[in-house]
């Protein structure tokens, strides 16, 4: 794939490539095996300006744009999908702050995020509210100049480490009576609950977030009361570009791992890459890589041009993550029994791949979005 990139976009990709190969790749396996959050690596990424890639310079961001963001995430996901999702969620948290926060809130919460001081989290999902956010129950009751929040949020990426959390809570009983809040780290009544034991992405942090009579002054409301669902949905397109990019980087890793191994491994007197069945699998992975890469590039450049991209972002997310899962299956098949052991990176990729068709909108939700857009045509 040789897309037409600007010099800055090429430089950003190159920097992310160098960083990932030197600072992430050699340590990724150990962090994942131990289930440890790579704080040192994340800190370095923040200082390089990768937390606020779509945030203007005046708020401490780098204003590099969505295409650059996608390219950087691909390079990082190639080496470690966990680091990529940490980064993706942080950039996603910046988006609603940029679009809906007051100037004072931006100074206080967006700037430190965009300039790499702390990571972000987005607390929407609950036990009974996954794909359908309007079912959420966490309540924020207004009392004087404050809101008292009670409830539990599920599967919150970066939850235990975030300097700022965007919370979506219910402020009135009607279906769309949701409001967004900015919750700073250490807010009273904010607790980190269960640390999820996951199938993959073991170097990323996924926790339950508990609100027990958590008091939030009203200047922490993001946007206006009742705008919660709108704010939650506005971040989705960037989130989908993020996860699609993560998947593209991981497909690239599948291709690389399978290709290198198939050239070295000999069976029936020749390198297995000389066997047609293996060649077919490699060819399929390579085609998926190119196709997924172009779809996400398309969605990202629409975002940079400020055009509507709901359908394209969903297409990229759906295709790239489904493609990743079949590619990881094939790449592991190329490795045979060795691929089933933790001695090989492909085993980790195979597990990390699985969640990509689930989070940031399941494949089923993406098809729903695409069909809804088609119907409008």
């Amino acid at each position, binding site marked *: 794939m040789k897309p037409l990139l600007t010099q800055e976009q090429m430089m950003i990709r190159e920097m992310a490539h160098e*960083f990932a190969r030197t600072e992430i790749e050699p340590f990724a396996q150990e962090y994942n095996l131990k289930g440890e959050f790579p704080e040192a690596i994340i800190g370095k990424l923040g200082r390089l300006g990768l937390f606020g890639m779509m945030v203007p310079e005046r708020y401490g961001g780098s204003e590099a744009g969505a295409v650059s963001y996608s390219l950087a995430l691909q390079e990082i996901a190639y080496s470690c999908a966990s680091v990529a999702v940490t980064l993706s969620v942080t950039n996603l948290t910046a988006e609603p702050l940029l679009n809906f926060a007051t100037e004072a809130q931006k100074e206080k919460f967006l700037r430190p995020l965009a300039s790499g001081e702390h990571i972000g989290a987005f607390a929407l999902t609950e036990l009974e509210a996954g794909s359908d956010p309007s079912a959420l129950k966490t309540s924020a009751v207004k009392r004087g100049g404050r809101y008292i929040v009670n409830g539990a949020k599920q599967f919150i990426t970066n939850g235990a480490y975030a300097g700022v959390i965007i919370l979506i809570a219910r402020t009135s009983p009607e279906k769309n009576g949701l409001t967004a809040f900015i919750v700073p780290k250490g807010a009273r009544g904010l607790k980190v609950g269960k640390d999820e034991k996951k199938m993959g992405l073991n170097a990323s942090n996924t926790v339950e977030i508990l609100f027990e009579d958590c008091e939030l002054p009203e200047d922490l409301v993001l946007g206006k009361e009742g705008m919660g669902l709108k704010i939650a949905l506005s971040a989705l397109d960037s989130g989908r570009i993020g996860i699609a990019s993560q998947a593209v980087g991981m497909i690239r890793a599948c291709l690389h791992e399978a290709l290198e191994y198939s050239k070295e491994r000999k069976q029936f007197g020749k390198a297995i890459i000389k066997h047609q069945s293996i060649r077919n699998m490699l060819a399929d992975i390579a085609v998926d890589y190119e196709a997924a890469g172009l779809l996400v590039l398309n969605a990202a450049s629409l975002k940079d041009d400020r055009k509507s991209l709901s359908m394209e972002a969903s297409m990229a997310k759906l295709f790239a993550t489904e493609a990743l899962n079949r590619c990881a299956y094939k790449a592991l098949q190329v490795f045979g029994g060795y691929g089933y052991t933790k001695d090989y990176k492909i085993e980790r990729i195979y597990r990390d791949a699985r969640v990509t068709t689930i989070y940031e909108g399941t494949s089923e939700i993406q098809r729903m979005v695409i069909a809804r857009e088609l119907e409008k045509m």
Partner: protein
Amino acid sequence: MKIAVCLKQVPDMESKFKIVDGKKIDESQIAFKINDFDNYAVEAALQLKEKLGGEVVIVTCGPDRASKDIRQAFAMGADWGIHVNDPAVESGDNFVVASVLQKAIETIGGVDLVLTGVQAEDDQAAVTGVMLADLMGLPHCTNVKKLEINGNNLTVNRELEGGFNEVIEMSAPAVLSIQSGINEPRYPTLPGIMKAKKKRLDVKKGADLGVSPKSKTDFIKMFFPVSEHKAEIIQGDPATAAAKLIEKLKTEAKVI
């Protein structure tokens, strides 16, 4: 302190190399990057600037594509640059490049220190820095592994064979060829990359600098070294095998 850093863009050594007509490399499959040694020189210059103030100017000879890596150095923190983009210079040898660099650095004016990498990863000639110093009439040190500055006095460690260092004192202005490992080059930050396109880059031809040097060497051809698999295993017990080996070294190889 005003520091000029000579920077060369080279092929990424992980690329697949193909030679066309025995004369040049097929660039279509090649990714280009900053010569690694020059990257250390850029970092050394930036560290001096951070300590002592002043500016860092990048000087490069190369075709259009080289501007990407000049801007890479800008993204790391260099202030501005001169890009000599001239096919006549491109086809010249190291002497031509050194002569052009000399003139380009003269146009900057008041340069206290010129830093180069020890060598380029591609041709590994390791002569441009030395030639440049000679042409500029300045003191020079190669293989610099450590650099301290006190006013105009430079104390440099020069790497020798076998892990030894030689400590040399010299005075600025001077030309230093920086060895890899002297520091840990920084990654360009994203804000740095975004600012790099706004920094000043003067594009020049050899004629603009009033120089049209002739190469001192002739380029004959380029080829991959042929690897020969000629090995003879001498059989037998150690004593007979050794005797046979000596016989062969005397009569066949005629080396003893």
